[in-house]
């Protein structure tokens, strides 16, 4: 069964560094999403992406964040200058339409 994959599974970085989190959505899906989950808390929506554009974004998704679909398979989330409070699990998801979203296994980001 097709699944969403994410790399790396874990990343440790220093405050102020840039990180890029990578996702490969399910191949025939058209809508892509990023979420984050701070340890022990609920899952928070960051951004949705369709047709090479951001569809919706949350208040969390400020100028430090950007998303890109650089080729036909990858979907990336960049954090330009990481802060301690960016430490979280980041999930990528994809869907065919406005319906079932399938989540990847997540990237655990730790900012020191």
């Amino acid at each position, binding site marked *: 069964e097709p699944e969403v994959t994410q790399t790396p599974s874990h990343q440790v970085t220093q405050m102020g560094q840039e990180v890029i989190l990578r996702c490969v959505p399910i191949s025939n899906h058209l*809508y892509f*999403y990023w*979420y984050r989950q701070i340890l022990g*808390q*609920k*899952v*928070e*929506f960051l951004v*949705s992406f*369709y047709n090479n554009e951001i*569809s*919706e974004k*949350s208040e969390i998704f400020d100028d430090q964040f950007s998303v890109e679909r650089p080729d036909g398979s990858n979907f990336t989330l960049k954090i330009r200058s990481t802060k301690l409070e960016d430490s979280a*699990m980041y*999930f990528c998801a994809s869907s065919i339409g*406005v*319906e*079932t*979203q*399938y*989540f990847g*296994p*997540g990237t*655990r980001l730790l900012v020191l």
Partner: protein
Amino acid sequence: GIQVEQSPPDLILQEGANSTLRCNFSDSVNNLQWFHQNPWGQLINLFYIPSGTKQNGRLSATTVATERYSLLYISSSQTTDSGVYFCAVGKGFKTIFGAGTRLFVKA
């Protein structure tokens, strides 16, 4: 924005017991999903259910969209059902998760 409330926040069950988890939401939505987050952190789709009733094995879900709530039923619970159950609702392409129900099933 849309508010999503889940209850109960925590639930401890003996293996074999049944339970009902509730999700209330504050506005009309065009999608609703239930997820199980297992102890390894994976988010597993259970149901996409913006309205109506669905069943999958020991799990079933009902959403009454006009009254803005959804219920997840777990029957004959097993220890592998432990984890956090999230309700997530969407309007357009923005999805809001509830705080979850943390379930522990004792052997």
